[in-house]
């Protein structure tokens, strides 16, 4: 019989086994911390108090106490609550207290996903049952049966829903929710930090609409927000809600001992500084725990990575771990499948899960002991969030970060102090993005007419009202604008993704049982669901047989091959207008509007295991066009004197490769939200230029931030290259496929110019 090793024993092995220990770049043990608590406030209803005591809660953590005090004086606040710190009590306690004092009171809970709302409903209902007072709490989402919808609208004290549902089902039908809006005391926004970028910008506008409707029905609710650790929770909450916020960050919950291990795969090719694949190393480390039946979560950065790792681990486990299973988890799985996986993790039936950042959110999957990250998640905040999945409830736990060879990963792994000491990133939104704003103004006008001179979240909107009137969408009468169109505007607006419609994925392996197994946004589908692409779903390989781009359907069939596919996207860029500009000695930085044309060109087939290229094919899909904002830095003729075209191109590509990873670090966005594109001869200036553009139409403020902080970004990029141990460039800094002998020094030359802010010349 095999004897299972304990977590501590495995840690010992990691420390002693040369094969592993040699690759550990940094090992930080974060000691446990005792909790800080305060007695219940006197005003808490005795029944609530008894219910809490019955569940073993005899006092409040300091932050829960502060939250209660703030909420009861109707001060909006944001509480910073790491995983497992008892954040739900921060809102449930004041809300339940309110309802016991006045049973007409209503509260609206907003969770970023349907799943979170359902988790929370069970939790609050258990507490309510224990309290023994008739308080009704319901989830309201697409699954809610129509016969109980009416009950919820009229009599639900606590209504739990998500932004999408609020946007498309509640606000446009506000006349059916009069009793909610007239009596709304609290709006709870959970997982506040997830509302950034495009989604956050949309959500801010949904909240503007919500407040407008509350005002119409005469209520003025207090906002209760909870957030994971980010640099600017208060600013984000204020920008999202438009209310003044109190910040509550005196977390009093106890924390278990945590080992944070930075693991850098060994170099296999010294001159080129090529390291062993992070995916293979992640598999090895995860297996170490899984073989000993220690519940482990593995995070991977893309859907494809998730599926590849899943394939590897399932293969391994078939031999060693008996019946307990390893599952995948990511966007694109159907809800039922996800619920089943979440439950399996809680009950322990599922031993391991490989996930994208979809499990970063507070979905209740219970207590895992180990977290392995295949690659740096991209932001400090995400890393802590993912790491928090291990050891949620005070036990000893391990987080292993396996670096990939990208510049950002190598930078992080070699500068652990950067990670442990730096503030987490700032979450940025731009609610006034014109496209997003106008979309929601249409919805708002559908909900209630606008008056001349009305503002929307502080924005003056008369010009937009006139524009929409001219377009025949609104009608002006007596200083008011009325919706006058036969459509339902919320239906055309998706809060989540840049492209408006998703491609559904249809499995036709079994001709008699053709079924939809998932969906994907249109932009991603260009590179992941093109014809002949290998699409992985739950570890099963499918080949795309037909992508009907018009109808947004991808038809796939199960296959068994030993490769996966990787597609190229060709991007061209035109400057439409320059809004801001600053000049240095040999470079210019500008910000303005651009048109981006993107087209998927070819795909490569890449063999599992060896990762070698074994074939390729063309992709024939129409070009996608995007109007957005961008910043760009162009270099003068002086800089490029004596360089051949090829040298110049490689230099710029090298520079872009580093910037692509470093810029998102500063802007706090996903690498896919801010694109970096080099051009040897930009069409507007004929100069070598690197562009940074927002992936969302109209821009959401990312590239503008780049414009403002270009010097810092360049400095950081320079450090990445400087510190890279390679000689003349490698995949960990300037990138692959190096012909020119010293791309590294060339890229450095560009960067030195870029960061040079002493010889500032003009700015307009």
């Amino acid at each position, binding site marked *: 019989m095999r004897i299972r090793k304990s977590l501590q024993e495995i840690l010992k092995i990691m420390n002693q086994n040369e094969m592993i220990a040699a690759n550990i770049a940094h090992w930080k043990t974060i000691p446990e911390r005792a909790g800080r608590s305060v007695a219940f406030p006197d005003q808490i209803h005795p029944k609530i108090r008894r219910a809490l005591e019955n569940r073993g809660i005899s006092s409040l953590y300091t932050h829960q106490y502060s939250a209660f005090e703030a909420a009861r004086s109707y001060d909006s606040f944001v509480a910073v609550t790491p995983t497992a710190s008892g954040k739900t009590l921060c809102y449930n306690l004041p809300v339940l207290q309110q309802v016991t004092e006045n049973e007409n009171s209503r509260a609206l809970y907003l969770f970023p996903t349907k799943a979170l709302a359902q988790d929370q409903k069970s939790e609050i209902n258990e507490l309510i049952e224990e309290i023994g007072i008739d308080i009704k709490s319901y989830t309201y989402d697409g699954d809610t049966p129509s016969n109980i919808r009416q009950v919820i609208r009229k009599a639900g004290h606590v209504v739990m829903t998500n932004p999408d549902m609020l946007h498309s089902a509640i606000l*446009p*039908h*506000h*006349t*059916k929710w*009069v009793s909610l809006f007239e009596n709304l005391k609290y709006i709870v926004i959970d997982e506040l930090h997830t509302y950034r970028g495009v989604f956050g910008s949309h959500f801010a506008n949904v909240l503007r609409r919500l407040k407008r409707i509350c005002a119409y029905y005469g209520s003025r609710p207090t906002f209760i927000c909870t957030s994971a650790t980010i640099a600017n929770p208060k600013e984000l909450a204020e920008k999202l809600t438009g209310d003044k916020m109190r910040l509550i960050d005196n977390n009093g919950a106890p924390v278990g001992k945590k080992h944070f291990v930075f693991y850098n795969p060994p170099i296999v090719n010294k001159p080129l500084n090529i390291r062993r694949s992070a995916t293979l190393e992640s598999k090895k480390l995860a297996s170490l725990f899984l073989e000993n039946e220690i519940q482990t979560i593995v995070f991977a950065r893309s859907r494809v990575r998730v599926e590849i790792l899943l394939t590897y681990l399932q293969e391994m486990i078939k031999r060693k771990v008996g019946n307990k299973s390893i599952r995948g988890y990511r966007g694109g799985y159907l809800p039922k499948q996800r619920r089943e996986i979440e439950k399996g993790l809680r009950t322990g039936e599922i031993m391991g899960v490989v996930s994208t950042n979809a499990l970063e959110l507070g979905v209740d999957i219970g207590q895992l002991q180990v977290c392995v990250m295949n690659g740096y998640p991209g932001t400090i905040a995400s890393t802590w969030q993912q790491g928090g999945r291990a050891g949620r409830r005070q036990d000893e736990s391990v987080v292993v970060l396996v670096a990939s060879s990208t510049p950002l990963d190598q930078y992080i792994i070699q500068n652990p102090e950067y990670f442990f000491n730096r503030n987490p990133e700032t979450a940025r939104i731009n609610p006034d993005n*014109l*496209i997003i704003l*106008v*979309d929601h103004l*249409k919805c708002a*006008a*559908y*909900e*209630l*007419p606008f008056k001349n001179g009305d503002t929307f979240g502080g924005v003056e909107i008369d*010009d*937009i009202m*006139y*524009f*929409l*009137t*001219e*377009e*025949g*969408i609104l*009608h*002006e*009468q*007596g200083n*008011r604008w*009325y*919706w*006058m*169109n*036969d*459509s*339902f*505007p*919320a239906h*055309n607006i998706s809060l989540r993704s840049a492209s*408006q419609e998703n491609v559904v994925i249809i499995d036709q392996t079994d001709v008699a049982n053709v079924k939809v197994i998932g969906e994907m946004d249109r932009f991603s589908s260009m590179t992941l669901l093109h014809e002949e692409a290998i699409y992985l779903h739950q570890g099963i390989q499918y080949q795309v047989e037909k992508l009907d781009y018009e109808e947004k359907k991808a038809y796939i069939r199960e296959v068994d091959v030993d490769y996966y596919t990787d597609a190229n996207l060709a991007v061209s860029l035109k400057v*439409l*207008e320059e*809004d801001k500009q600053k000049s240095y000695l040999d470079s210019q930085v500008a910000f*303005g*509007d651009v048109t981006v044309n993107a087209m998927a060109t070819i795909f490569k087939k890449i063999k599992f295991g060896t990762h070698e290229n074994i074939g390729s094919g063309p992709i024939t899909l129409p070009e996608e066009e995007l*109007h957005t904002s961008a910043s760009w830095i162009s270099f003068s003729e002086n800089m490029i004197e004596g360089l051949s075209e090829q040298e110049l191109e490689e230099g710029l590509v090298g520079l872009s490769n580093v910037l692509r990873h470093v810029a998102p670090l500063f802007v706090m966005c996903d690498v896919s939200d801010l694109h970096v594109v080099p051009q040897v001869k930009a069409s507007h200036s004929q100069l070598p230029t690197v562009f940074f553009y927002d992936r969302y*139409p*109209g821009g959401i403020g990312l590239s503008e931030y780049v414009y403002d902080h270009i010097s810092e970004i360049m400095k950081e990029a320079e450090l990445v290259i400087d510190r890279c141990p390679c000689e003349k460039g490698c995949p960990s800094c300037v990138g692959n496929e190096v012909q020119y002998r010293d791309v590294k020094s060339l890229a450095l030359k560009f960067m030195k110019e870029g960061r040079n802010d002493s010889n500032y010349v003009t700015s307009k």
Partner: protein
Amino acid sequence: MSLQNKLNRFKKQLTHVGTDPTSKKTIKPIKEKQEVNAPEWRALQARAIRFEDQHCILREKNLTKEYKIGQYTVNDLHDVIKRWNDRSQSHPLSAGGRQAGDLLFFDTETTGLGSGAGNTIFLLGVARVIEDDIQVRQYFLPEPGNEVALYHHFLTDVQDTSNLVTYNGKAFDWPQVKTRHTFVRDMVPKLPPFGHFDLLHGARRVWKKTYDSLRLSIVEKELLNIERTEDTPGYLAPMLYFEYLREKDPAILDGVFRHNEWDVLTLISLYTHLSNVLLDQSHGSLSTTERYEIAKWYEAINDFTEAKQRYVCLLDTSARIKAKKALANLYKRGKDIDKAVFYWESVIETEEDVESYIELSKIYEHKYKDFEKALYFARKGYEAWKSMKRILRKQEEKDQAQFNKRIIRIESKIG
């Protein structure tokens, strides 16, 4: 980039709700005050009516008792209402306890589909019987900001009626009235607690097997001998209203008013017809399918006496098997086992009917304790079942297991 430029740059994305392509050419955003009692309104038999500082448009028309809507006149309506009143059993379309004048035949025209807050009702059309005349009144919203006047007049005028008659009004028109009423509820009368006959529900019960679509225009053509000429289809109504708001020329609305008027008048005719069909025992012009569906409807509302009578009348038609089985089931429910057995046995005289065999087997086993006969019917049923074509394998296995169980059990009782 200036806001104006940006708005133009993103025009395509900003207006993807589907703008009316004709709108831009004719745009005149600022309108001089309209003379509310313009001759153009009079040409439509309409006039402005005021309430405080607002007004709405009322179009009114009276039709004398000789006026025929398709094949019916007001007299026919009075007649069916009298017959409903003579009947003691309830029915969802029964006008028992009411008079013709209590009924409010009602239809709306709106700016869009769906039930959202921004879907405005711009025309409320009603028809009612006043003594022997039919009065049609249409309340029109001349500007979106005039809803107080619209609902004030509409709700004041209909106070002495008590029952709506609509076509799909339970799901659409009336909820939408509730939605719009919410906006002005503090300034206008409350919504009355109307009774409601939704004739679409009735039409579905009786004719869903007969016609592919039960759109009002099809129903009136097929059943009521109403032929509209130059009708403006309902789906154009929103566009025409938008155009009216820009042009302020009432003539644009002529077709919409007529369409709505037709709709409410058709409701009178349809209600009369449906009542006739439900109340009439002679079935003169009815098809077997219609008669069978009506019997089923009575069964569904637990009016078993009426249902039995109507099934019995079907015994000499092509629906006789269905009717016999329905009768058998009704008698079984009424615990009249012998009569039930009579009808099932009568079914199997001509048909190898699995269900009847099973029912007979059950009764002979459990009630009559005649196990030989029970076994005989069980076996006959099993044979009949085996000769049927089946699609669902799961169900098949389940059925087969049940037959086997039944047969074995009865065999053991025989000993």
